[in-house]
């Protein structure tokens, strides 16, 4: 019996059409949420942001293949995000104070 080497314990290709379907459904849901559904403004805001983040994550993880990359490469993309959050928070603080 042969033991699979690290090179053979590989990733299979994601179902791109299924991800496209998720993105499509979530885009329709966003538009419906913004214009049709009777939620308060804050609930809508939260739900729209959550949907946008999920969609962005789907693109980054499966289309850009970040899910299958090494951590060293993922860090290049992830590190600017907290810096970006600090930038926005700092500018908002400037306004608040």
């Amino acid at each position: 019996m042969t033991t699979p080497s690290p090179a053979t314990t590989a990733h299979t290709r994601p179902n791109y059409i299924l991800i496209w379907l998720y993105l499509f459904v979530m885009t329709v849901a966003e538009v419906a949420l913004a214009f049709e559904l009777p939620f308060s403004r804050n609930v809508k805001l939260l739900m729209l942001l959550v949907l946008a983040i999920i969609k962005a994550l789907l693109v980054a993880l499966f289309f850009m293949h970040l899910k299958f990359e090494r951590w060293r490469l993922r860090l290049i993309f992830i590190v600017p995000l907290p810096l970006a959050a600090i930038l926005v928070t700092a500018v908002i603080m400037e306004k608040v104070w």
Partner: protein
Amino acid sequence: MTHATQALDQMRPPYPAEPGAGVYSNKLGMWVFLASDVMFFTALIGSYIVLRFGAPGEWAKPGAVLNVPLTAVNTFLLICSSVSMVKAYAAIQDGKKYFLRPVPGKLLRDGGLKFWLLVTMICGAAFVSVQVVEYIKLVGHGFTPAGFREGSLLAEHAAGDPIKYGATVAGLYGSTFFTMTGFHGFHVTCGVISMTYLYFTKVLPEKYSPQDYRGIEVIGLYWHFVDLVWIILFTIVYLI
């Protein structure tokens, strides 16, 4: 006793990785560029958030000034282009350099790299075209980067219902809208031009192979990033 079947790692090209990040230099370069582009768009989006929530008046209601259904269709186009891009990537991994090929017993033909990249280019060009049409219509109705043009249709509507149209902060609204969507549109245009160049110099002459498809992977990363940014922009600019 079973025979283990060797599965190819479909996510990593079979040419040597370089030390450090463990990927070839073109790909590493694109990731570093994308990291810098994250900061660029964050600066734009962050400024937008600060300006919007610090503004002395309410922003225009969603759909009052901007054409949301048209942009929703445009968003769908960009999502489709992302899928066709990743299908082009998968096609060259499998060695499918052709345009379309009949599949025995199936009605639909099998698309190769030439087909899927062309679909991506067409969707990208259509996105930019729709955006140009949207800009022309908005400016025609009186929505400019400086706000509502005096004497225009929108200025009249805004005078009748200043809350709905965000009349007091129209200048901020116009400048942030055109800056963010304009820079994104510029990115999409650059992507379409780059893909067209690749198509004629590398894809049509069949210079890519399952052993080396670096150009497709690198332009694919850029294209998906542009899609990712639009997903965020569409939500915060058009729907909120």
